[in-house]
């Protein structure tokens, strides 16, 4: 009897990370690809930082310049390659995570940009828009392809996040007039993300 019960039990999921419902999970392959995209973004950021230090100190030779350029192209191609693999598999959740992580790799909260004062300052400020756009596209595709229950949970969570953020922004506009400081838009991002997370928790519990 016990053996039968064990045989009927579904295989244990090694890693499960749910956003739109209880069935989404990352495969080992997807975890590797997300990690490699993030590592490429971090390596690119470090390379840009080293390049900008050499540039400002005047130690940048044409050979080094060429090496950095080749390294940058290689890292961007590597990230693009993994993104392409995930997209071809229609694995939207890892694409979303990789896009968000690659974007976050360049994020400098309340600090100067990575290559401040060099020719790369503006391109590096604009570069993270590409992974952010991919994450946006992946998120919309994920919602479009979600099943009925997942879509319903997400829809309720999104409407909750929408109204909570709308009310909080209007309330904070008043608090600003009362003397509170103007906050960085990062905090609005956080409000939206947290209220979405709270919405998902509340509404997914309802359908359990």
């Amino acid at each position, binding site marked *: 009897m016990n053996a039968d019960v064990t045989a009927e039990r579904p295989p244990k999921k090694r890693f499960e990370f749910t956003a739109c419902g209880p069935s989404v999970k990352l495969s080992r392959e997807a975890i590797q690809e997300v990690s490699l995209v993030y590592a490429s973004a971090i390596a690119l950021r470090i390379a840009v930082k080293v390049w900008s230090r050499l540039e400002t100190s005047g130690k940048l030779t044409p050979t080094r310049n060429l090496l950095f350029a080749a390294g940058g192209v290689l890292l961007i191609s590597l990230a693009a390659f993994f993104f392409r693999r995930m997209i071809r598999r229609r694995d939207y959740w890892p694409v979303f995570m990789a896009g968000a992580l690659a*974007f976050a790799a*360049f*994020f*400098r*909260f*309340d*600090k*100067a*940009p990575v290559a*401040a004062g060099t020719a790369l*300052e*503006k391109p590096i*400020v604009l570069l*993270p*828009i590409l992974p*952010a*756009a991919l*994450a*946006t596209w992946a*998120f*919309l595709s994920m*919602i*479009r392809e979600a099943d009925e229950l997942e*879509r319903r949970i*997400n*829809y*309720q969570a*999104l*409407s*909750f*996040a*929408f*109204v*909570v*953020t*709308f*009310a*909080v*922004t*209007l*309330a*904070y*506009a*008043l*608090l*600003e*007039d*009362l003397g509170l400081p*103007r*906050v*960085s*838009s*990062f905090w*609005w*991002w956080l409000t*939206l*993300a947290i209220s*979405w997370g709270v919405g998902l928790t509340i509404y997914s519990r309802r359908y359990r």
Partner: protein
Amino acid sequence: MTREVVASRRRKNWIEFVGVAACLLAISLVAGLPAVTRAVPPGVLIAAVLAAAGPLIAVFGGMLRDLDELERRIAAEALALSFVVTIAAMFAYPFLEGVGLPPLRPQTVAFVLVSSFAVGIERFSRRYQ
């Protein structure tokens, strides 16, 4: 339920939503006036704004519950678009703050949220026409 009854209930929902949102905006604007901030304790002003925010959430929730399957699908896609646009903009803007742009006003955030939702409704309802 006849089409007229559904239409009239939706109209009522929209009127309620716009009314409550207008009340919240009006309270925020009045409470921000220097004369009012001097005369009324800050706790009372904050409580007034939060008291207006609660009904807004309830009315919006009721509105979404009353939608039919197709309208709900369009609203879901529009909400997703609004969420992603706002979250990406709020995440990207600190980079521009680093370049020297001033921090965003909360009203601008609310505007981005609502206008991207409106664009989503317009765009996705065209798809199902």
